[in-house]
């Protein structure tokens, strides 16, 4: 067990090094001189170019810059924004809870819908219930989430007037006000996901239902529902676990459009602003942060496999 954890940690560190290096390299390779993109085309006060180069250590060799940046980064110092002068780490720690909440809620909704739909699809394979849910999945997959978001705003904010069209109430303002502003964007993000999740459960479930131990469970006279949920669901959730991890990581950086649509001050919103303003350190900070989260989440997923399947556990 100790050995396994040590191995996982070692792999985690190696992956983080690779991820930060690659992200750093890609941002450094962005076309154009960062100084030009920072200063724009307006008049330049004398000495400012040299100032920026010195601040960014642009004249140092690439590797030196990476090592310096990494050294600062592990102490939590990701530099400061050129535009607002706010430390990048502060921006991230302010914005992260918002995006993380959205990501979590949308995954939760997706799983909640996908499990019954996927299980039903497998159980009633090729019957009408399965055809209807397949058709639903096709539709859900083909609607872009921002279009669905616009529809939700139209229905619940404009027509029914139940929920606000945009804006964000922090959790600290109370759970209900927060839910009022978070439920629609979370649903908008969940639509495509629930379709993918339910398909995964369905196909894993179909192969699980062929297993001998399902036949033995049937021969014991257990009810179909019990067999589906207590015997077949867990062995059919391994791919789902993987995709949940990937989706969670992807959502941290991928809620840009929905955050913009609903005017939500999350990470994606900051990232798009940073890109528009060529705020290099902020871009770099957020990108690396998301990549790191991605790696950490996937490590957690690896650990969770052991919870799902006792054969992976080492006693």
């Amino acid at each position: 067990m100790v050995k396994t954890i040590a191995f996982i940690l070692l792999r985690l560190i190696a992956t983080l090094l690779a991820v930060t290096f690659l992200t750093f390299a890609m941002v450094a390779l962005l076309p154009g001189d960062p100084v030009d993109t920072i200063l724009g085309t307006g008049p330049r006060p004398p000495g400012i170019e040299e100032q920026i180069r010195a601040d960014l250590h642009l004249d140092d060799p690439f590797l030196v810059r990476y090592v310096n940046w990494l050294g600062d980064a592990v102490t939590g110092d990701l530099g400061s924004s050129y535009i607002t002068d706010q430390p990048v780490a502060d921006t991230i720690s302010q914005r992260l809870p918002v995006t993380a909440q959205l990501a979590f809620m949308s995954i939760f909704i997706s799983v909640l819908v996908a499990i019954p739909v996927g299980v039903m699809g497998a159980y009633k394979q090729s019957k009408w219930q399965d055809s209807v849910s397949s058709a639903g999945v096709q539709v859900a997959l083909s609607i872009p989430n921002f279009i669905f978001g616009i529809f939700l705003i139209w229905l619940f904010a404009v027509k029914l007037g139940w929920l606000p069209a945009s804006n964000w109430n922090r959790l600290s303002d109370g759970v209900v006000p927060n839910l009022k502003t978070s439920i629609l964007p979370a649903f908008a993000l969940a639509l495509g996901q629930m379709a993918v999740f339910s398909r995964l459960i369905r196909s894993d479930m179909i192969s699980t239902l062929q297993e001998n131990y399902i036949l033995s469970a049937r021969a014991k006279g257990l009810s179909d529902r019990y067999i589906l949920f207590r015997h077949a669901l867990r062995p059919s959730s391994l791919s789902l676990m993987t995709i949940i991890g990937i989706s969670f990581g992807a959502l941290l950086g991928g809620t840009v459009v929905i955050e913009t649509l609903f005017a939500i001050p999350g990470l994606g919103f900051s990232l798009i602003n940073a890109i528009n303003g060529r705020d290099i350190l902020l871009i770099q900070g957020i990108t690396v942060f998301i990549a790191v989260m991605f790696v950490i989440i996937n490590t957690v997923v690896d650990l969770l496999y052991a919870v799902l399947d006792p054969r992976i556990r080492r006693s």
Partner: protein
Amino acid sequence: MENEIRVGRVPARHEVEGEALLVVDDLRTSFAVAAGSVKAVDGVSFELYRGHTMGVVGESGSGKTVLSRSVMGLNTSANATTTGSVLYAGDQMIGKSSKEKKILWGAEMAMVFQDPMTSLNPVVTIGRQLTEHVRYHLDMGKKEANEVAVALLQSVHIPEAEKRLDNYPHQMSGGMRQRVCIAIALACGPRMLFADEPTTALDVTVQHQILNLLAEQQRDRAMAMILVTHDLGVVAGRTDDIMVMYAGKAVEKAPTGELFAHLRHPYTQGLLWSIPKVTQAKHTRLNAIPGRPPNLIDPPSGCKFAPRCAYAQDICRVEEPTLRSIDTPDHVFACHFPVGTPEGEEAFARNVASDYPPALAAVGKLRASEEVVG
């Protein structure tokens, strides 16, 4: 052992003997596939008395598994059709909804499957797999069901039974797992047990222990049992009756002693010769019957075994024999030229004389088996 008594129903005297628990009549199961209809069970009839054991023997593919599942009503594939009659304690099983059958499954009739490595759920503890149906069928609380589970594990001779409840299947050996499977099958005290090649997937050393365990439990609980195997040697001393299956049909049925004393069907003789000998290296299939079982979609006309039979004559390839008996009415067989009868010996001699390959192969087998005996 007080628990054991509660675990297994104690049958009343009249239940043990004299009354047929299971009456199967003209049972047929076919599978619709692209090429046509696979007649896996093709008109099988038999009776099984309370507390009696019947061995079902045949090569792999002869329909033993489909037969036992059809009797239980457990065929899962959507392309399966079962017709005929299965009376269980006077109750017609064919046509019952699966909801009605679930009341019987696990409680009245239970099955032990071939492969203990795959027939236990790897992510569910042994304790829960042992108790879930007990709690469901017998309406027991968790604590009581756990006590029953421990008693059951003890009765199938699993050491440290309490500790095993929290184990997962992968923490046990194949033999142990099959013991667990047997305990699961016995848990609700069924009156009818199906054991579908319960030892085929196990080590030779473990096979005897498991078979003895089954026999012991069957006797103690006075259950009716159908023991399915491809090895005639397995059922030799352990069953009241034997039914030999070939290509979905019963080709010979008799009380066990009678069958071994006067076997009539050349296929049964082939099975007898292919019993693995102790002197033989493990897993040699040298003595298997030459040739392959027929295509079940479009079988040849006449006797299905004729192409592989040492006794086959022209009529065998045209006219399919039906079950009949000679002296003993409860010994029936489907053959035109039965083993050990003048017409059979004559047919065999004629085939040997004309160098008919199956007959020549049989001569070799005959000699080999006489050497082993002698």
